[in-house]
């Protein structure tokens, strides 16, 4: 898809969302002073105008290249490409990792996360686990022992 058009549409939608969110905030206070929604509303208007201009220039580009819309086939090809698949997979694993932290605790979850990401992306198990253990040990020493940061513990330990 045309980058300008995509940016324009997204900006316009974000603008609409903020426009809706501003409706419950006072715009003008006493003595006609600007209220809490004055500045965000001003920004929203700028965002929507910029979005509309980009949409228009994107549409002009579509017309110039005589492409009505990107074909479904091309979009599917893009989604199936290795680069997109690798990035999406990484996001999904990271989401699972963050969800698991409060249950398994930071140390175990991080070790499993580092090891599994390596294995999924082609590192051998024999190499992945030692790297994971060493990395977590380093983080543990740096943050928990030296800097005394309290990182999440396994949920079961909290009940013990």
């Amino acid at each position, binding site marked *: 898809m045309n*980058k300008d058009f*995509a*940016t324009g549409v*997204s*900006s316009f939608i*974000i603008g609409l969302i*903020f426009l809706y*969110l501003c409706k419950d905030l006072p715009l003008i*206070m006493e*003595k*006609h*002073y*600007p*209220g*809490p*929604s*004055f*500045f*965000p509303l001003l*920004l*929203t208007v700028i*965002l929507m105008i*910029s*979005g509309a*201009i*980009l949409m228009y220039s994107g549409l002009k580009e579509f017309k110039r290249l005589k492409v009505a819309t990107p074909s479904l086939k091309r979009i599917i090809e893009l989604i199936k490409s*290795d*680069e*997109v698949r*690798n*990035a999406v997979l*990484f*996001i999904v694993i*990271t*989401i699972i*990792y*963050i969800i698991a*932290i*409060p249950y398994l605790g*930071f140390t175990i979850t*991080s070790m499993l*996360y*580092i090891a599994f*990401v*390596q294995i999924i*992306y*082609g*590192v051998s198990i024999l*190499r992945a686990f030692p*790297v*994971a253990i060493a*990395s*977590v040990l380093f*983080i543990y020493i*740096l*943050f928990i022992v030296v*800097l005394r*940061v*309290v*990182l999440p513990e396994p949920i079961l330990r909290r009940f013990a």
Partner: protein
Amino acid sequence: MVDLLGALQLILQPHVLFAIFIAELFGLFIGAMPGLTATMATALLVPLTYFMDPLTGISMIIAMEAVAIFAGDIPAVLLRIPGTPASAAQTIDAYHLGRRKPVATLGTDLVCSAIGGFIGSLILIFVAPALAEFATNFSSVEYFWLALWGLSMAIVISAEKPLKGVIGVVIGFLIASIGIEPVYGYPRFTFGSIELLKGVSFIPAMIGLFAIPELLRQISRPREKYIIRLSITEKAFELVKQALRKFKLVILRSALVGTFIGALPGAGADIAAWVSYGIAKRTSKKPEEFGKGSLEGVVASTSANNAALSGAWIPALVFGIPGDSVTAIALGALMAHGLRPGPTLFEKYSTLVTAMLMAFIFANAFLLFTGYLSVRLSSNILRIPRNILVPIIATFCVVGAYAVNNSLFDVWLMLILGIAGFFMEKVGIPIPSVVLAIILGPLVEFNFITTLMKSEMNPVVFVSRPIAAGLAVLVAATWAIPFIRAKMRRKK
């Protein structure tokens, strides 16, 4: 009166020097890895600085940045891939030179980087306090225009299209507007969440916007690694004498240009390197060698990019307007320690600030040692594959985001902003503009609204003071640049 001895005593504390050294090793590693930038390294380093005194923390950031920018030249010389954007200008020349003498090219690069950084540091030390004294005359109107100028520069310089830069800035402002509103204390866009009441936490946002898009890019080609062998017998400083003798004026000029460009809000080390490279080519006796392995080209851009780092701290410390994205993050770290950048910082904490400025000198002195180490170790660093590196850095991102407030909410925030940042980059919205707006958002809004209130809603107040009017002209001139450029292009 600045207490130089007191500042020297502060910076010479063993734990500060040790922290500088450790930070340089970290910078060396990040800078040498193609794709990992100094900005990302700073975002990862900042959560650590929370647990240190401000001087140690800020010194670490300064030192890490100096080495990372130099280390970015290593893959440029060895692989023709700039390690950081600041190394892009010299990549072709450095690579061609490096094919014949890789270690000697890196050695010359290192010495010129350190000299550039040293000159930039001296300018920072002398200019910043004088400028801070002048800045005490500024009121909310001047600060409003100054912030707007910084944002305008960031938009005009970094965006492929200025309109996308505007969108980036507005998005940053809107992110910054979440939480308690700065004038009336009214909760805004919080959806009833207690975590959002205090606004979007700066550090998780920085880590998300800078590190996550980088990791996503790296993991999309997970098996890529670089294999390089360097000759152990080659002398690192073989070309230095020749470079210093032939190009001493080029180094000096590039360092001055670099510091000046670095001091412009929004223009960082990468632009400084390109401009200095361009000037060197135009004034060179052998311009035909540029692009084919010109030592002059390498020397010019490497002295400029390291000098720009110090330059970027001038507006950051004096006005609270960061010169580049690294200083933007560092400002967040300063504020987290309760130190508000601005002219009063120089009055209230003069010894501490002087010690921070001295950290630049020490960072550049240490650079000669750690840089030499990095030249020798570079082949090992470049051999680490991405599929091992990415999950480790991702874990650091999670810990860093969590450690700021001990909250998993911040980790989610980091991930969401990171994914958003990835898409923003894909469509050409410059991330530094978004970040700059997140930092300057509350400042711009507060000064804008209070100025309007003080003047009983009279907009003329924005240009009624001479400095304010001058800054307003500067903003207008900055916005005129892309239009003039487009018109000139059309004429050609």
